[in-house]
């Protein structure tokens, strides 16, 4: 094997011609610009005050060991603070004090060592200026020839080129190896249901009552006065044992009542509201944040994440921001007892776009 003849660092004096010679010897394939600026060399050596004044040197020395002693003090204080300010019971104030005082101690301990070491290096350690020459990345001709020889020999000995059946089967085996990992990603989705189906449907169905979040108390149409905003979940969601949050994340609805004259329902949606009461999905069509900042006079809904605005009086169409689709509307009606019910599920998938969404 070839030797790396540029290993290690080389300390060179500030001599530009020396440095240039060094480069000329082994530039590899690098392009050397001939009109590049020449190395100006070092500025004249300037002694520090600590080099000249013994008093200043003493003072710097004192500063450094004081910083190290402060660090010891910080460590000791951190131990003391742990005992003096214990976290007891469920008192959050105790956590605050404990963390703060231990933090002060550890900070002092670390910064004392750090600042002390840097100050020592800067003011007291002898430091003649020097250049650490960066050696070229490419190897010498001999190194390259050696490497080529190694590969050629290995190929000859193993028969990698000659025994092509073995080689190709090995390549095929290596290609097949990562495929199981791709398949395993499927395990992140529920096993017995299609993800597209899950994204396209919510708990809402024909006749499902609209209930209050979080109590699950059904809502009468007469409860919803003009200007109100109700945060709504479908009946039965509050009692779900499993997957409650997943269902809530899709089925959350905001219920609002406007003057019926202020609503401009789209064709085909005239019967989706009840006497000025409208229900819209709370999940933003941009990236799925809950849109619930309702302004009762302007009838605007604002998404807090990216400032998309939806106009409730015009079918929640987008009037500002990055959302591309209006919020899906939940068609509602009133049952015999006066409670608000859903006419059906949402007629389109709620929330942000996904690959298979039509």
């Amino acid at each position, binding site marked *: 094997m070839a030797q790396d003849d540029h290993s290690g660092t080389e300390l060179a004096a500030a001599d530009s011609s020396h440095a240039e010679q060094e480069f000329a010897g082994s530039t590899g394939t690098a392009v050397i610009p001939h009109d590049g600026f020449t190395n100006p060399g070092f500025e004249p050596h*300037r002694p*520090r*005050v*600590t080099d000249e004044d013994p008093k200043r040197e003493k003072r710097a020395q004192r500063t450094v060991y004081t910083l190290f002693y402060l660090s010891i003090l910080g460590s000791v204080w951190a131990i003391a603070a742990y005992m003096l300010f214990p976290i007891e019971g469920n008192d*959050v*104030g105790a*956590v*605050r004090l404990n*963390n*703060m005082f231990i933090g002060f101690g550890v900070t002092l301990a670390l910064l004392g060592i750090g600042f002390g070491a*840097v100050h020592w290096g*800067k*003011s007291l350690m002898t430091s003649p200026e020097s250049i650490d020459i960066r050696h070229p990345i490419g190897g010498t001709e001999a190194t390259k020839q050696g490497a080529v020889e190694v590969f050629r020999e290995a190929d000859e000995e193993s028969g990698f080129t000659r025994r092509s059946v073995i080689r190709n089967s090995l390549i095929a085996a290596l290609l097949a190896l990562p495929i199981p990992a791709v398949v395993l990603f499927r395990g992140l989705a529920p096993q017995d249901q299609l993800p597209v189906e899950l994204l396209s449907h919510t708990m809402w169905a024909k006749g499902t009552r609209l209930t*209050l*979040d*979080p109590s699950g108390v059904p*809502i*009468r149409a007469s*409860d*919803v*006065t*003009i*200007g*109100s*905003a*109700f*945060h709504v979940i479908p009946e039965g969601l509050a009692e779900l044992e499993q997957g409650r949050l997943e269902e809530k994340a899709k089925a959350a609805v905001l219920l*609002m009542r406007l003057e019926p004259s202020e609503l401009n329902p789209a064709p085909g949606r005239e019967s989706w509201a009840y006497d000025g009461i409208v229900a819209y999905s709370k999940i933003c069509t941009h990236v799925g944040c*809950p849109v*619930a*900042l*309702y*302004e*009762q*006079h*302007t009838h*605007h809904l*604002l998404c*807090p994440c990216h*400032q998309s*605005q939806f106009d409730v009086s015009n079918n929640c169409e987008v009037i*500002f921001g990055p959302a591309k689709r209006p919020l899906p509307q939940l068609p509602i009606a009133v049952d015999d007892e006066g409670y608000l019910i859903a006419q059906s599920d949402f007629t389109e998938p709620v929330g942000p776009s996904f690959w298979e969404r039509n």
Partner: protein
Amino acid sequence: MNRSKRRTGRRHPLATVALLALGLVFTGGAYAAISSGTAAQAEAKPTSQETIEEGKKLFQANCATCHGLEAQGTANGPGLIGVGAAAVDFQVGTGRMPMQMQGPQAQQKPPQFTDEQVKQLAYYVASLGPGPDIPADHLVNGGGDAANGAELFRINCAMCHNVAGAGGALTEGKFAPPLTNVSGVHAYEAMVTGPQNMPVFNDLNISPEDKRDIITYLKYVQDNRSPGGFELGSLGPVAEGLFIWIFGLGAIVAVTIWITAKSN
């Protein structure tokens, strides 16, 4: 000249001071007794015809320009028939009304009327049509369940007012005000009446007891400091990020410059 006279006379030098103090105490005491007496006499009562008459005068002098002489509303302001005493107590009691100028939102400012005048106005407006009344004390004194209040606050209020009640921005210059210095009464009245662009949360949406719990939560947040250290206004990741970008990175830059600078 006077001074030398006093020193030679028999009066103690502090006698004037003592006499002055005595006089002040008596005057002040008498004034306090009389004024508290009159306050007790004139306390606004919802049913009293006198209260309503006083309120009507105040209304016609201060509110009628925008809301109309009979509170029927004009092009500049909504009608107030049926808004109830709670709406007036909130709007006038927090200084939002009378409005300083037309704008996206009525700003909070020092109240323009005394408590008594606010009540007179409130009961005058309440006499025009039935509406939500000023809540009873047991609902607003913060004696409820803070945990239940916190859950309801997160569902119904936190999206606009911030989870710690620090307030937040709305559209086109409007904003949800911080709730850190709001009294229980005003918080309750705001929920019932839906001032400005805030939606109404009537008693069938959030029951009076639940409203009491929400107020309890707000008081809890006001009284308990953040266990995690400086809140930086509880405004969330933007304020915290800005702080660490400026001060954290600033400190790192300063230390880097110090480390690399040549020692003199």
